[in-house]
């Protein structure tokens, strides 16, 4: 009888311990569904109206003084907040790479922080290097040709 009692107590303790270990942050993963529905009631009505009246725009709704948009302050979601990176000193990124090479790429990369601009500088660097190599060998061929090697 005593043995049974000890076993039962141990089992209860184990269950509590396991639950205790696993108890965590589930309450953080909750929100008030009713409050959210109330908050979005006007937008839900507008959404339904727009979906029924295909092709309708916000401008046309405002122009016709539609009550669904009255009292709602709309924000333009596509207003550019960060202008696209201008190349350093207004000189195209291609020429930064083409003339100054790797340093030009670094300048473009750190100043614009823009992948597309950096790609342009890289293209410039590759083309600039190729042109330089061709000119270099062309010059030597010309020198050696004049010296009577060919």
């Amino acid at each position: 009888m005593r043995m049974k009692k000890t076993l039962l107590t141990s089992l209860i303790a184990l269950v509590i311990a396991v639950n205790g270990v696993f108890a965590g942050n589930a309450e953080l993963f909750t929100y008030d569904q009713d409050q959210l529905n109330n908050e979005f009631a006007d937008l839900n009505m507008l959404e339904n109206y727009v979906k029924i009246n295909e092709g309708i725009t916000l401008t046309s709704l405002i122009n016709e003084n539609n009550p669904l948009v009255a009292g709602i302050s709309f924000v333009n979601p596509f207003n550019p907040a960060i202008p696209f990176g201008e190349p350093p000193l207004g000189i195209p990124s291609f020429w930064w790479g083409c003339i100054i090479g790797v340093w030009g790429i670094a300048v473009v990369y750190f100043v614009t922080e823009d992948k597309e601009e950096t790609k342009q500088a890289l293209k410039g660097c590759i083309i600039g290097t190729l042109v330089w190599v061709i000119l270099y060998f062309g010059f030597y061929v010309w020198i050696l040709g004049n010296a009577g090697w060919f």
Partner: protein
Amino acid sequence: MVLRILVLITCLLPKIVFGQHFFRIEGDITVKEKSDLQSQLTIGRFYYDKNIGKLVYHITFPEKQVLVSKDTVLYHFIADTLNSRTRSFDMTKFSIFNLCLENQLNNYGMENTFYKVEDVDKDGDLVISTWVPGKSHQKYFGKVLISTKDNRLFGIIFMNPEGEIVGKQFFEDYTVVNGLAFPKRMVKFTYMGDKQTSQITTFDNLKLNNLNEKKYYDYPLPAR
């Protein structure tokens, strides 16, 4: 004859066992957002091809326009004419569309970031994993808690380095399209001090691997 059938089965078996390879997804999208003073409603259709890497939104409301996100640039077109080009974070890699196609939605693609799993707990029907940023990022980034329910992503909680909650996101109403599970509703809360922004995104009419609509999946971008 038997040999031919066996060869055919052997060739088709991996396809049958591992299912389809998904590379394209499209669907109707509605985004509703509310903050203290302003509201926003956006309705349109999205197109994403993970091989092309362009996330295209063909928007019909509030005004007709097209948004294209590629790498770190967001292109804005009105009547097929480029209206603006803005720098943004790379929206494609961590978009729900890419994570779903790459089968990484369950941990929100965190495995491929500077975050590492610190702890995994079970709480009721949720399995909650705690992700911490690497030491060099701890000054600017806080913990992220990710919960899954029935082996599907349920919610994410973003914290700042001080441990305060700065954002919550919930993934609900899953649908299965051609074997791929996709949440039809996302609810997001962003907290900045005592101000809160709530956002509800819903998806509908989802299609996978549509080989038509090339115009949208590979929307032409201006050459620089």
